[in-house]
């Protein structure tokens, strides 16, 4: 049996969900035996590959880069998993949503900057008007809420999906 091609991507989040993923400790070997990790912040690869079976996405969709990335990821992935509250609800990155982007930029790069006060829009990706949950942009197949979702839930969900059964999500929730 050929291995399942697994990718993970990191949009606007703190990487805590990736940490929680690694928190499954030695059980990660069970997962590793059944999947091939083809793309991840943990893998040194620049291009997101084609024909990915499962992609786990952490983080909300905040910038034009996130938007481009998630659309491209969706088009190359069979099963998309939204991992954690930022991907599922927009969570903390979404706390700026009640402010205008200009005001957010002014606060970060002028009011709170001591040196080189300037707008960085030429250098870093432009922020979207609001941070959005992944499923408001592209269809999502599985939702794993939690900040972060517990390692047990991530492990259990991956095993269920690899076995072709429905994951049990009763042990996680918004916030946690």
């Amino acid at each position: 049996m050929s291995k399942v091609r697994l990718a993970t991507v990191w949009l606007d989040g703190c990487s805590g969900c990736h940490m929680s993923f690694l928190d499954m400790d030695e059980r990660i070997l069970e997962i590793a035996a059944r999947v091939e990790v083809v793309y991840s912040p943990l893998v040194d690869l620049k291009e997101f590959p084609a024909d990915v079976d499962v992609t786990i996405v952490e983080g909300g969709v905040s910038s034009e880069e996130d938007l481009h990335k998630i659309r491209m990821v969706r088009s190359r992935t069979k099963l998309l998993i939204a991992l954690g509250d930022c991907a599922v609800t927009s969570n903390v990155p979404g706390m700026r949503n009640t402010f205008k982007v200009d005001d957010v930029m002014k606060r970060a790069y002028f009011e709170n900057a001591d040196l080189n006060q300037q707008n960085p829009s030429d250098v870093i990706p432009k922020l979207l008007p609001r941070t959005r949950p992944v499923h408001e942009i592209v269809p999502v197949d599985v939702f794993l809420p939690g900040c972060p979702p517990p390692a047990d839930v991530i492990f259990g969900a991956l095993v269920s999906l690899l076995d072709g059964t429905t994951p049990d999500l009763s042990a996680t929730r918004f916030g946690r």
Partner: protein
Amino acid sequence: MSSRPSAKPTAPAPSSKVKTLTIDDRLVSAREDESILDAARQNGIQIPTLCNLDGLTPVGACRLCMVEVKGSSKLFASCVTMVGEGMEVVTDSERLQNYRKTIVELLFSERNHICAVCVSNGHCELQNLAQLLGVTHLTVPYRNPKLPVDASHERFVNDHNRCVLCQRCVRVCGEVEGAHTWDLRGRGIDTRVITDLNQPWGSSETCTGCGKCVHVCPTGALTEKGKSIREMAKQSRFLPYLTMMREDRSE
């Protein structure tokens, strides 16, 4: 106050009539002045609720406790619907589950409930309901309204971002504390809880600072000052006890 059936621990008065009905195909009996919710709970049948709190007059604000009654196509809030002879009640159908999930989703979308950084994370009835009903994400868009936080009171904070308009604060303040500091203003999605004549809580002349509103609040809307994330555990169990002791004294 006297028509508060759920808080009465005493045996039924001889004059009150008993009704027989079925809830989820189980034959049960209840006093005629008891609600469907009371009857269900007395028989170990759980119906999800949010605005309801033992010891306060039910208002049917959240609609989570809606049930089906045979012979009618409309749904009934079981906390404010009295039992009737021969009633056939269904508390848990696919239709009801879908409505309940939608209600929870709408509550999350209406304001800014950011559980991960909320003082009530881990102690929140809305968060628990989402988990209980299997709400893993929202199918409606977030509104992200800009809402104020009133931290003018010496000891308490009112964060409108987390309010679900259950009116427990309004009821406990009016019915139990007798101060009626809290009330509602506005309509529909613009409704807000207010103190006195819509003025900062700290400037309220009627607030006694008793903190009952804080401890009956199901979410992180009303909290004690100085609490950090996860620290605001509510103690609402004083309420049925207080009500019971007061009724004992009056009898």
